[in-house]
């Protein structure tokens, strides 16, 4: 059994919220007076004990225990504010825990940001050294790897130019190049792959693979990209509100996590007509997005076909009703609009509609759906906006490329390559 590289026990971190102002100075003085001069226990401290979930405090981490084996790649996932960054900061010795202990063996280097310690006024060369030292490299190490770093970054021509004149891409590449050549026993990485162009991201992921697999180093890796976590990590730690939600095999935890954040926004339903959104002509009874999954814990990915189903109360007589469905990306760009067939309703009643979005059509990302309910295909009876939303996860199969897939849609089209007969030898010899 592999040795344990990091051992985390009952780790908790309490943050005080709110601003520090005149009040805090008075409180501090009072606290100091009571504890140090009168030798009593501080009233504030007692208050904390009595009411640990005080409005002004926040447990960013609460009783977190886990261990990482030597050579293991541990992914840490969770929503924003779940304590991922706090955990990394404690393990990399930037801040201290309120309670609990972290113990470990080996040299730790942390990459919580690209370009830590870079100074804009200095040249690329100076910055490689400065940043390298700050990240904990030795002089020999940097000297030995200097050429390699420069080559990896691809900024050879500008190495003696101040980095403030670099394009942002060059800056990031140089910064990451330094970081990528760290050789710690334990590497702590926070979402640094979300920078730079696709080509460079590919390079970074490749480097991460290389570090984790060939060199056998322990890595803690925080990311929002489930694709990256899935392909890199052995185990995954899922944090929620500062506590461990699940810790275990990567694909299992990732699937649970993704399906848990997707569940919320797939269905809206109103039982009573009076409470339903709408107006005197039309009211919405339900809207629902049904993914065609193999089992309920599975994840919506780009292959998944989706059915959109909705029900309306039509309150008018002799109304020719049709529906327009619009699909927007999360940035608000309209991906497509579809118009339903129209239905002639002679008297009030329930109308049901259904639309199938096939799999292998949308790109990965977050989407929302809006409806326009129309009369005579032109008059807007009701606009029902942003009522459904869903995330489409990436799926690459065996593809060895992890960059963002370009394009608004990602249809699977018939696209094939064939090798024709070999060129005649006299043609190839000319070139």
């Amino acid at each position, binding site marked *: 059994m592999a040795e344990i590289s990091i*051992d985390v026990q009952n780790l908790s971190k309490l943050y005080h919220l709110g601003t520090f102002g005149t009040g805090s100075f008075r409180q501090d003085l009072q606290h100091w007076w009571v504890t140090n001069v009168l030798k009593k226990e501080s009233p504030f401290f007692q208050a904390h004990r009595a009411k640990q979930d005080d409005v002004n405090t926040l447990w960013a981490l609460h009783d977190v225990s886990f261990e990482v084996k030597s050579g293991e790649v541990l992914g840490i996932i969770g929503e924003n504010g779940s304590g991922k960054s706090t955990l990394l900061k404690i393990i990399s010795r*930037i801040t201290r825990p309120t309670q609990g202990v972290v113990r470990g063996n080996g040299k730790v280097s942390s990459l919580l940001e690209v370009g830590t310690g870079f100074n804009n006024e200095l040249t690329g060369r100076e910055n490689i050294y400065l940043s390298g030292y700050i990240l904990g490299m030795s002089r020999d190490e940097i000297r030995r790897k200097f050429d390699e770093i420069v080559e990896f970054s691809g900024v050879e021509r500008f190495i003696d130019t101040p980095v403030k004149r670099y394009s942002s891409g060059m800056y990031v590449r140089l910064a990451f190049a330094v970081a990528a050549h760290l050789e710690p026993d334990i590497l702590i990485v926070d979402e640094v792959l979300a920078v730079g162009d696709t080509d460079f991201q590919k390079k970074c992921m490749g480097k991460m693979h290389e570090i984790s697999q060939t060199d056998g180093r322990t890595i803690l890796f925080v990311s929002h990209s489930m694709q990256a976590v899935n392909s890199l990590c052995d185990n995954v730690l899922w944090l929620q509100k500062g506590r461990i939600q699940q810790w275990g095999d990567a694909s299992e935890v990732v699937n649970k996590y993704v399906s848990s954040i997707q569940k919320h926004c797939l269905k809206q339903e109103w039982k009573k007509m009076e409470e339903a959104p709408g107006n005197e002509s039309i009211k919405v009874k339900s809207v629902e997005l049904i993914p065609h999954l193999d089992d309920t814990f599975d994840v919506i990915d780009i292959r998944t076909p989706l059915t959109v189903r909705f029900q309306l109360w039509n309150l008018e007589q002799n109304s020719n009703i049709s529906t327009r469905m619009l699909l927007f990306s999360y940035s608000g760009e309209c991906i497509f609009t579809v118009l339903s067939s129209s239905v002639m309703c002679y008297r009030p009643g329930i109308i049901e509609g259904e639309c199938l979005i096939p799999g292998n059509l949308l790109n990965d990302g977050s989407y929302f759906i809006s409806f326009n309910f129309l009369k005579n295909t032109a008059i807007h009876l009701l606009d029902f906006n942003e009522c459904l939303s869903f995330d489409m996860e990436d799926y690459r199969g065996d593809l060895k490329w992890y960059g963002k897939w370009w394009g608004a849609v990602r249809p699977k089209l018939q696209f094939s390559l064939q090798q024709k007969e070999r060129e005649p030898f006299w043609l190839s010899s000319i070139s």
Partner: protein
Amino acid sequence: MAERKHWEWEINNSSSYWGASLAELWAYRHLLASLVRKNFLVNYQQTILGPAWMFLQPILTLATYTLIFGRLVGLSTGTLPPVLFYFSGIILWNFFNECFGGTANTFRENAQVFSKVYFPRIITPLSIFCTQFIRLFIQLFLLFLLYCYYILFRDFIPRLDTWFFVFPVALLAVGSIGMGLGLTLSVITAKYRDLSGFVQLGIRLLMFGTPVIYPLTYLAPDMRWIIQLNPLTSLFELFRFSLYGEGVVIFPFLAYSLFFAALLLAIGLLLFNKKGDSIIDIV
């Protein structure tokens, strides 16, 4: 399972007054050197005169002081030529001022780096101290040139003796006071920023409470003790006494100054080490 009882490192909620071990500081010596280098390079980046500013800045101050305090106000500088008198005061005061001002904002200015990567925090103020010390030595060389000029061409005869070799003591003690105050303040201003406004004003006033532009002998003998309560006073006088043979050096006051310097540095270092870890949460 191979349960190991021994761990190479441990992180818990108690911070120590002693901070990083010497071995760890030694491991980061190249970072220190690199930061000192950065401090110099960044200061003179994109200036036409470059490092010449290191000479130009005190020379311009010297010209101003000689003109205003020497000619217009007519402050006496004792038997010393005003140029030599002011220059020694200016470079020593600058050294104190920069040591203090440079370290007093350690946490605020480096919050970005401190919140992203670990290294012994004391390296940062230490790099400021080293930078200023090197700068002081370069300026001392300029003082030496002026000194020679006055001896050769102005018939200035200094009373030099073995006291000359004491002047580094004055420099170190002044630096210690500057850095000790700066470190203490960096911890306090990280939380209470309005303090730095008062402190800047205080430092400016302190200059007039220190014999920078006037000799202590300028004051009536029974009034001197007020100024001598300022621990910097005896050190400035010691500096001039060792260099030029003129100055008021009284042993009880000198001992008081040296003790004060050691105490301030100790308080500053201990406080900085103790509070350095938790301050990053509130800065």
